[in-house]
């Protein structure tokens, strides 16, 4: 055996505890959804065209693409009368690699008919509390030597309020100065969900393409994110079911993509055609790898997958 073989086996063996935690986590999550009358779904990983998003680039597979998210097919099932569906699948996003990013990662996505985003936040909380409990974390979980309390209800706070607490400028100023993303990563995200898990909700309409806008305020999308220990774990929203509005947002995303020379996508016509028949519903995507990072108490996504692109 050469030295590099030994090194490789050693590094993989070091990940055993994290991989055991990860496997148990996925079992616990599945158990919750089965207990709550959800149907587990598998949709194709290879699709003709992903939902156009300004900041997510797909990876090609022959003349099709690897999915960046399972949303288009999941919503077609919702429209066909499947009221509670979930899926745990691989998603692929080009050029996303960092301490918290892998270009191939595992996503849990679920949809509930007749739910709005606040009901979905509560269900997400219930699912995670059950999974944490299953994993031996009844009351709290330790992250980087700090206790995170899992006592319910978890914190819910609007994005505008979060800017007022942590950021040097207001949400409106940040949007006006085109600094929303920078302020989020530099001043806000590291402090979210540190004492207890935190849902941030009512995001500005711009960056949330498939989210319904609030009736009371068209500048706000019915969207939320969950943070635990400074880590962004999930993104959910009340589904937008207005096909005209969705088409317009897709067009804006396509235009923005063309402007920066990204891959050309077709307009997802099949999806737009059924969108009007999607019932009022809410959907959420949760990063399984990130959740495993919390359970394994690590800062590096590499620690919770057996193989990274670099190790192949």
């Amino acid at each position, binding site marked *: 055996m050469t030295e590099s073989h030994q090194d490789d086996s050693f590094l993989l063996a070091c990940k055993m505890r994290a991989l055991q935690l990860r496997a148990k986590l996925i079992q616990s999550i599945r158990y919750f959804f089965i207990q709550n009358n959800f149907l587990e779904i598998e949709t194709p990983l290879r699709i003709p065209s992903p939902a156009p998003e300004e900041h997510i680039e797909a990876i090609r597979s022959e003349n099709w693409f690897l999915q960046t998210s399972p949303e288009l097919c999941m919503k077609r099932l919702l429209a066909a009368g499947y009221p509670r569906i979930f899926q745990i699948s691989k998603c692929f996003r080009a050029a*996303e690699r*960092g301490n918290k990013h892998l270009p191939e990662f595992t996503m849990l996505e679920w949809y509930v008919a007749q739910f709005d985003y606040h009901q979905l936040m509560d269900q997400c909380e219930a699912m995670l509390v059950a999974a944490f409990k299953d994993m031996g974390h009844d009351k709290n979980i330790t992250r980087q030597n700090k206790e995170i309390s899992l006592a319910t209800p978890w914190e819910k706070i609007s994005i505008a309020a979060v800017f007022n607490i942590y950021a040097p400028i207001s949400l409106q100023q940040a949007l006006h100065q085109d600094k929303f993303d*920078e302020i989020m*990563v530099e001043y806000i995200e590291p402090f979210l969900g540190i004492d207890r898990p935190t849902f941030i909700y009512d995001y500005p309409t711009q960056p*949330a393409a498939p989210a319904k806008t609030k009736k009371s305020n068209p500048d706000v999308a019915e969207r939320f994110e969950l943070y635990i220990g400074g880590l962004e774990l999930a*993104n959910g929203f009340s589904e937008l079911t207005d096909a005209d509005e969705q088409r317009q947002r897709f067009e804006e995303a396509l235009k923005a993509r063309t402007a920066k020379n990204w891959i050309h996508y077709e307009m997802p016509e099949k999806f737009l055609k059924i969108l009007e028949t999607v019932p009022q519903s809410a959907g959420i995507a949760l990063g399984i790898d990130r959740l495993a990072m919390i359970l394994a108490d690590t800062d590096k996504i590499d620690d919770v997958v057996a193989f990274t692109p670099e190790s192949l």
Partner: protein
Amino acid sequence: MFTASDLRKGLRIKIDNEPYVIIEFNFVKPGKGQALYRTKLKNMINGNQFERTFRSVDTFESADLREKKMQYLYKEGDKYCFMDNENYEQVYLTEDQVDDAKNFMTDNIEVEILLFEDKPIGISLPNFVELIVTEAEPWARGDTAAGSTKPVKVQTGYTIQVPTFVTEGEKIRIDTRTGEYLTRVKI
């Protein structure tokens, strides 16, 4: 020319006409937002460090940096003089630019001078140098406690911790990266 997605730890780039080295790097992407590249940069001329976040549309020139073998000649005031052995031209570095290297430089030692757009900005030494101990407390035989050390002065004036058995007039090898004693050398 680099774009932000080419950035990585150790890369040297030019910003506002000065050379910087990336000492920390991370890819981040807030939910549904754009890719951002968080870096910690060190100015290679004055050593100042700061954090900066870039977008994928940001572009950078690579810093025109190269190293050239030169010989250390002498110190004059607070300037250090080096000679390019190819064309016999002399260049100068300030005390700040020479930094810790001065502890290990003896006359005529060969060093690498770091040039930014042909201007000297820094120095790198061989990893190991051999220097003579010029001042040391005598060794008391019997003082053999494992790991016990004492300070001695070497010919450059630098004070270094060495094992107690090292005596005045001996030559020792020093790792210039850590500034630590390695071994005695037979003269």
